[in-house]
């Protein structure tokens, strides 16, 4: 070890070496949306805290979240949630050793983020148009 770190050893190729494909995009998107979901958790906790604090606190929460910026944030975290859910389901399939064939892998790498957007649109359409 003492010598191993100092020797000029070859590094494994990283992002800029490979030709870009959908599988790389969906992999990075999974990490990005997973981190984004932390903001969703914070809003969920604020929501619960406002509910537990009383009508005044809830009115303030509702006022912030129904402002234009509030809607943008809520649409964003719902997109992050549904997208992470779809790419997470993809991970379950990969975990059992399936879905590595090039064509199949490419199809689901594209389908997962698209399904995430569709679920987000459906959710808000039902919520606002009911």
């Amino acid at each position, binding site marked *: 070890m003492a010598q191993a770190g100092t020797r000029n050893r070859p590094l494994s190729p990283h992002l800029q070496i490979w030709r870009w494909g959908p599988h790389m995009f969906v992999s990075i998107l999974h990490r990005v949306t997973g981190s984004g979901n932390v903001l969703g958790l914070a809003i969920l906790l604020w929501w*619960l805290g406002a509910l537990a604090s009383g009508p005044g606190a809830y009115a303030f929460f509702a006022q912030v979240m129904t402002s234009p910026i509030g809607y943008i944030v809520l649409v964003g975290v719902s997109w992050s949630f549904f997208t992470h859910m779809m790419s997470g389901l993809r991970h379950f399939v990969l975990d059992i050793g399936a879905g590595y064939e090039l064509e199949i892998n490419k199809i689901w790498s594209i389908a997962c983020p698209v399904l995430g957007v569709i679920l987000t649109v459906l959710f808000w359409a039902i919520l606002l148009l009911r």
Partner: protein
Amino acid sequence: MGNGTSIGRVRGLGSAKAGPHHWLQQRYTAIGNLLLGLWFAISILLMPNLSYAAVTEWLGSPIPATAMALLIISTIWHARLGLQVLFEDYVHDDGSKFAVLAILNLVSFAAAAFGLFCVIRLALGGA
């Protein structure tokens, strides 16, 4: 860690043997998140409106309160595991890594405790 024999140079540098446990817990909580997250999204859509009265009445009943408590535990646990991997990947300095992981643990437990307290207060009629 010695410099003498070849075994002495690599001893202690292998896996900590805790990886599979972390990996599996990430999957178990993911299954929980899938079920509870879908339950939450559908519940939001099924509620007549999202007024204070409607939501507190909903969270005051036993099954939604239980599911919300489980949602808090499962999602925050999953987030803690995921963020740990994130920090281990991107924070290279040992001291900083220890610090962010210590903070992550404190914030995760505090967040879960806060969420559970709020649900219990709503469910038991304190609010």
